[in-house]
Every structure is written in C-alpha cells, then in structure tokens.
C-alpha cells in the first residue's frame, strides 16, 4: 500500500487548536498552581480561604479569556486569507475554510468569553471549583467551532460529541443541586440516544455514496451531481436521520424533550451558553448540510424541515405560556426561536443563510444576558426562579428591571430591538423563497409568545402588598458588565443592524468541491 502523507495546514483549525491548548493549560494550572484540596471526592468540600469578589484564582479566567482572544485573532486571520484567495478545504478536504465558518467561530468565541466572565463570578460566589468549568467551556466552544468548519461527516460527528460531552458535565456542574443532577442525567441519556441516530444517518449516507466527505473527489456533492434521482433513497433516508440528530441539538420540536429540564437544572451561565452556543453550532452544521451540500435534494428534505419548523414554532410558543419557572419558560421560548431560524433554513437562499447567522448571533447575545439576570436573582441554589419571584423587581432594582424589559421585548420581537430585526430578516428570506404561509404561522407563534414575555414584565412592575420576599440581586462587576454588554448589543443592533447583516452576507460563501 502506498501512503502519501497528507498536507497538513493547521491554519484552518487554528482557533480550535488555540482553545483546546488553552483548556489543557487551564487544567494544568488548576492542578499545579495555587493551593487546593487534593481530592476528587465531594464530601471533602472545596472550601478555600479568602475568596474576594473576583476570587483569589483569577489566573484561570484570565488564561481562558486569552485563549478566546487568540481564537478570535486566528479566525480573523483566516478571514483575511479567505478574502484574498477564496474558500478552500484543508486536511484532505476534511476542514472547510470559508467565510461561513469564520463568522460562526468569532460569534462562538464571544459567547464563550461571556460565559467565562459570568461563570467566574457565579462559581466564586458559590465556592465551587473553577478550573474544570473553564476547561469544559473551552473544549465545548472548540467542538462547536469545528462543527461550523467540518467538511466531512466524521469531523461533524467528532465535533458534535466534543461539545455535547462537555455540556453534559457542565449541566450537572453544581453537584449539590438535585435538579442539576437530574438534568444532567436526562440530557446525557437523550443526547447519547439522539447521537446514535445521527451516526446511523452517517452510516447510511456512507453506504449510499461510498464517502463521508462533503466536497472532495468522489464526495457527496459530486455523487449527487452524477447519480440519477431515482437511486437516492438510501441517501435521503440517511439525510433524514442527520436532521433528527442535529434537530435534537438545536431543540426542534419532536426532539425537544430534554430542553426544559436541562435548561432549568443547569447553572444559569451554562444555560445561557447552551441556548446561544449549541443552537448556533447545530444550525451551522444544518445550514452547510442542507442549504449547500444537499441543495440538489431540497425537494426531498424541505417538506420534513417545514413540518419541523411549523411544529417547533407553535409548540414552543404555546408551552412557554403555561410555565411557572422562568428558566423553563425561556427554554420553551428557545425552542420557538429554533423554529424561527428553521424558516430561514427552508428558504435555501443566501438571504436565508445570512439571516439565520444574524438571528443566532443576536439571539445569543440577548439570551446570555437574560440568563445572567436570572443567575444574579436566583440565590445560591437558584431556587428563586419562579415568575412570582420577580414580583416587585422594579421597586427593588429599577435599572435591572429596565434591562430585563429590553431583553424580553427583544425576544418577543418588538421594534427597536435586535430581535425585531432578526425576525424581519429570516421571515423576509422565507417570503422571498415563496413560503409565505410558514411566515404567517411564525407571526402567529410570535404573537402567542408575546404573552409570556409580557407576563414577566407585568409581574415585575406590579406594586402590591403581597411581596413575600423582595427580589435581591447579588452581582459583582463581571455580571454587571455582561448584562450591560448584552443590553447594549440588543439595543444597538436593533437600531444599527446593517454592519452585522453585511458581515453575515459576506459570510455566505462556502468551500466547494
């Protein structure tokens, strides 16, 4: 057998390498620098003396942030090269280096950095261990980034598992919380279950085409170009299973069972990270797979995806209305938002792709802020997360109530917020593609959804004598900074959206065969 050493150009996955290397450094620094109890057993506790507002282990979050900075720098570097020489593939066609992947990577790095900032304060206040948290966030962002630039189904699967396994652990990170343990168990079992379907899909696609590669010679794209339509049934079946697996990760409706439990039981910074990051990563893979590679098969997959989109929007919105817990409510709202993004996926045009990217970026920035507010109000074990616990928030913390109002209005899609612009863009793309009726369903779902956002607002501003315990925000500079940043992004992108949309439009070029 003759072997040709593959040409390895690391620039394509340089951001991922930077993050993974940082994660390893964080683990080593955590174990070898500073004093800490030498035990893995929780009953010994993790008490450490003198944790100030920023803690005495500030070197770990700093190191993590440097890692994210390096990742953004390397991604921008890749953007320049792609701009100059066009999109390419690397690692024997395994990695796509194109505008799409660079845009997603930079957005993910921002989400990750915000999670580090929030997580640091959250963990220090609760006296939880930090090193593993940062390492897991770094690893999972690396996996999410790899999702966006994978040009081979093997890489897609490895990326999916990398970020999922890290998230399973993060969901149950606060080990003393019973609901957290339960959430981790459910998320893990359902996640592992769904990824076997994703794998079976890959196996069927491989059986149909003889390749797992998307663009390369003899890959799926060239197979589709040369095979008559009647011989594609195995490939269509495989593609359907791939949609199931990815639909689970973005919390689309028949596969959404894990979402409310995982969102409720996870520490709030992790919940925000999941809502922002794993949705973006899942949709990045879906967009590349459906709108680019399987574009010739669009008449086959589109009915399925339209069905998912419609059911997701309606079920998510309706079930959110009846929730009492604010984290569960935001979970169902995130399901509904996944449905809105699906309307951009079925458009299969450039406007849909850039619209989906814009939507996911703005939604992520808003939802991270919303969960940051839930975290600062929730108390040490996040027991105060019911809607009624927000009663009288305006009287206690007027500014926080104002910011929460802005974020909720953005999630509802009210003008002068980024959520409004984002909905306009994705619905516009679907109308352009001729799916007006899906948009009408989406508009109805948004109207239903407005109810529960308004419910929080009403409770917040209500002044009555029945307030059992006033909402009390416990926040330090990091939480305040992240909440402020999120609010600023929501407002600014609602007023001056064009720069980000133009960037997203520039990001709609993909690596090709």
């Amino acid at each position: 057998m003759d072997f040709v050493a593959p040409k390895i150009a690391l620039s394509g996955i340089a951001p991922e390498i930077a993050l993974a290397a940082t994660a390893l450094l964080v683990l080593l620094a955590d174990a070898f620098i500073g004093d800490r109890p030498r035990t893995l057993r929780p009953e010994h506790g993790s008490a450490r003396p003198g944790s100030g507002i920023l803690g005495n282990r500030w070197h770990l979050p700093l190191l993590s942030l440097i890692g994210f900075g390096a990742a953004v720098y390397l991604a921008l570097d890749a953007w320049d090269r792609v701009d100059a020489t066009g999109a390419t593939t690397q690692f024997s066609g395994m990695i796509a280096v194109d505008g799409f992947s660079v845009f997603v990577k930079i957005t993910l790095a921002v989400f990750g950095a915000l999670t580090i900032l929030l997580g640091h304060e959250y963990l220090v206040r609760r006296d939880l261990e930090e090193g593993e948290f940062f390492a897991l966030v770094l690893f999972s962002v690396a996996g999410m980034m790899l999702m966006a630039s994978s040009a081979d189904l093997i890489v897609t699967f490895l990326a999916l598992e990398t970020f999922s396994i890290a998230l399973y652990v993060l969901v149950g990170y606060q080990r003393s919380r019973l609901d957290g343990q339960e959430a981790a168990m459910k998320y893990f079992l359902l996640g592992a279950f769904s990824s076997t379907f994703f794998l079976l899909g890959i196996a069927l696609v491989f059986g149909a085409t003889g390749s797992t590669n998307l663009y390369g010679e003899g890959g799926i794209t060239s197979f589709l170009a040369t095979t008559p339509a009647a011989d594609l049934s195995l490939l269509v079946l495989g593609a359907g299973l791939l949609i199931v697996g990815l639909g689970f990760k973005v919390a689309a409706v028949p596969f959404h069972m894990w979402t409310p439990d995982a969102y409720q039981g996870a520490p709030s910074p992790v919940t925000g990270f999941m809502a922002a990051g794993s949705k973006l990563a899942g949709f990045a893979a879906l967009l590349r797979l459906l709108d680019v590679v399987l574009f010739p098969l669009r008449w086959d997959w589109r009915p399925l995806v339209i069905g998912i989109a419609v059911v997701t929007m309606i079920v998510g919105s309706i079930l959110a209305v009846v929730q009492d817990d604010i984290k569960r409510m935001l979970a169902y709202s995130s399901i509904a938002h996944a449905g809105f993004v699906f309307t951009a996926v079925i458009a299969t045009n450039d406007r849909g792709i850039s619209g989906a990217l814009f939507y996911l970026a703005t939604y992520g920035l808003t939802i991270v802020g919303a969960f940051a507010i839930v975290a600062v109000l929730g108390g040490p074990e996040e027991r105060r997360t019911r809607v009624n616990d927000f009663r009288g928030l305006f009287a206690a913390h007027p500014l926080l109530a104002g910011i929460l109002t802005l974020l909720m209005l953005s999630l509802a899609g009210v003008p002068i917020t980024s959520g409004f612009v984002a909905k306009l863009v994705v619905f516009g793309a679907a109308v352009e593609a001729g799916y007006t009726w899906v948009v009408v369903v989406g508009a109805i779902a948004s109207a239903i959804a407005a109810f529960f956002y308004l419910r929080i607002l009403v409770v917040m501003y209500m002044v009555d004598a029945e307030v059992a315990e006033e909402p009390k925000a416990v926040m330090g500079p990091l939480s305040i900074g992240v909440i402020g940043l999120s609010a600023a992004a929501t407002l600014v992108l609602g007023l001056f959206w064009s720069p980000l949309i133009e960037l997203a439009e520039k990001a709609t070029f993909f690596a090709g065969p």
Partner: protein
Amino acid sequence: MPITYLLILSSMLFSIGVYGVLARQNAVLILLSIELMLNAVNINLVAFSAMFGAEGVAGQVFALFIIAVAAAEVGVGLAIVILIFRNRSNVDVDEMSLMKW
C-alpha cells in the same frame, strides 16, 4: 457473505438497543442499550466499508473513532450515574421527576 446479512444483523441490534432505551428504567441498562446501538452502527459501517473495498476504508476508520467517542461518553455517563446514586441510592429514571411542567 452477502452484505444484506450484515445489514440485517446491524438493524436488529439497533432495534434491540432502541427497545432497551425506551423500555428500561435503570439508567445503567439504558446506557448499555445505547452502547448496543453504537455497535450496530459500527457493524453497519464496517459492512459498507467491505462492500466498497479499498475505496471505503473511511468506514473502518470511522468505526474506530466511534469506539473511542463511545468510551468517553460512557465515562461521563457513569460519573453522572454515580452522582445520582450517592443521593438517592437508586438510578431509576422514572423516579427522576423533580422538574415537571
């Protein structure tokens, strides 16, 4: 051996795994059923790989990756099972109902 036999074996294993996940209450048994499904996919991949000959070596490589990833998944899964067992002294998924809508 015709590839059909291998594919039938694989789909039977996969179906048994699905049944196990849906019917079992013990988290460890659900974990085992998921492993069964993963191995069914491995058989599937290796069968297709053999069908394509030298062109289809990607299938075998993929099977190796799946084995490795499955081990990592089981590691995390068992850790979560132990965590829950410490608190409740059973791992029955039907009893996990702290959160309900």
